[in-house]
């Protein structure tokens, strides 16, 4: 069986200087990786003869508006179905350059996940075959899950602050 410590040590050695911030909240191995090595890293984990971390559970995004230089994070959840071992990889991005290479050539399932991440956070996946909105209306001209917008719908006129005690 794989354990977090061995895998973390191996990854840290193999991709020295490009990965870091290893932690294991709720026993889930989590670390950050730079975007230059994210695809080689995913390929390595997928093709490793012992690890076989070859199932892409999810790709999503996070917006940290106050973290200067790394406002956006792309999160990859991976699962080794053979070893029942999970790993979470975070790729921090600057808001001035929110590009990350696509994982669609490695995982076909990344197609819709990356479209969703683009739809809600505006993260550009370079090389994606069809990077357009997937869930929201096409006419939407902003990325709604960025923490830049009021929570309530701005087109609503019947909500008077006094009625809501504010």
């Amino acid at each position, binding site marked *: 069986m794989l354990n977090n410590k061995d895998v973390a040590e191996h990854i840290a050695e193999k991709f020295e200087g490009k990965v870091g911030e290893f932690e294991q909240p709720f026993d889930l191995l989590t670390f950050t990786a730079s975007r230059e090595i994210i695809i080689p890293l995913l390929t390595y984990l997928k093709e490793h003869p012992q690890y076989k971390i070859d199932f892409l559970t999810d790709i999503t995004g996070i917006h940290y508006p106050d973290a200067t230089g790394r406002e956006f994070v792309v999160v990859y959840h991976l699962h080794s179905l053979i070893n029942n071992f999970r790993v979470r990889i975070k790729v921090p991005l600057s808001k001035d350059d929110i590009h990350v290479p696509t994982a669609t050539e490695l995982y076909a399932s990344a197609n819709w996940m990356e479209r969703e991440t683009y739809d809600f956070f505006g993260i550009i996946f370079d090389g994606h075959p069809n990077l357009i909105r997937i*869930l*929201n*209306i096409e006419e939407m001209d902003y990325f*709604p899950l960025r923490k830049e*917008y009021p*929570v309530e*719908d701005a087109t*609503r006129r*019947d909500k008077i602050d006094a009625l809501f005690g504010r």
Partner: protein
Amino acid sequence: MKPIKMVEPPAGHSGAGFFATSFDQVIGMARSYSLWPLPFATSCCGIEFMATMGAHYDIARFGAERPSFSPRQADLLLVMGTIAKKMGPVLKQVYIQMAEPRWVVAVGACASSGGIFDTYSVLQGIDRIIPVDVYVPGCPPRPEQIIEGLMQVQELARNESLRRRNTPEYQELLASYNIQ
């Protein structure tokens, strides 16, 4: 056995062997007791409508026992549930496909105002895209409330002019929604 209630005849003149009334009244009455609803159900209000259609509440008592799943044969669009902004054009298309005379009931808080879903993806009330005749409050409304909404539409059907579609107010209303 309970006495059977018959519908009162509309006001008119009667004598030996004849009864005279206006088309407005007699056709309005006929329409009000054969409203064919199109259930446009997207969430929990639709479940309440299923109860309303069922034997216990029995919307058929009001002449609405024939749910029409084609807008072309429907008189009454019952919008039940949250309408996402992406669903908006679909709902408008369904409304446009309905033939006159047509009525719309917004059933429940979401269809009426967006309800609790005050967010970027949800239409804040279907009256943003199509005209609405009757609003049924509730989250979700009980079947009795939906029946009350239907009875309000019956009242409209009875009392409106025969060709509401030709009145300038109605045409102005549709024009304000960009519907021809």
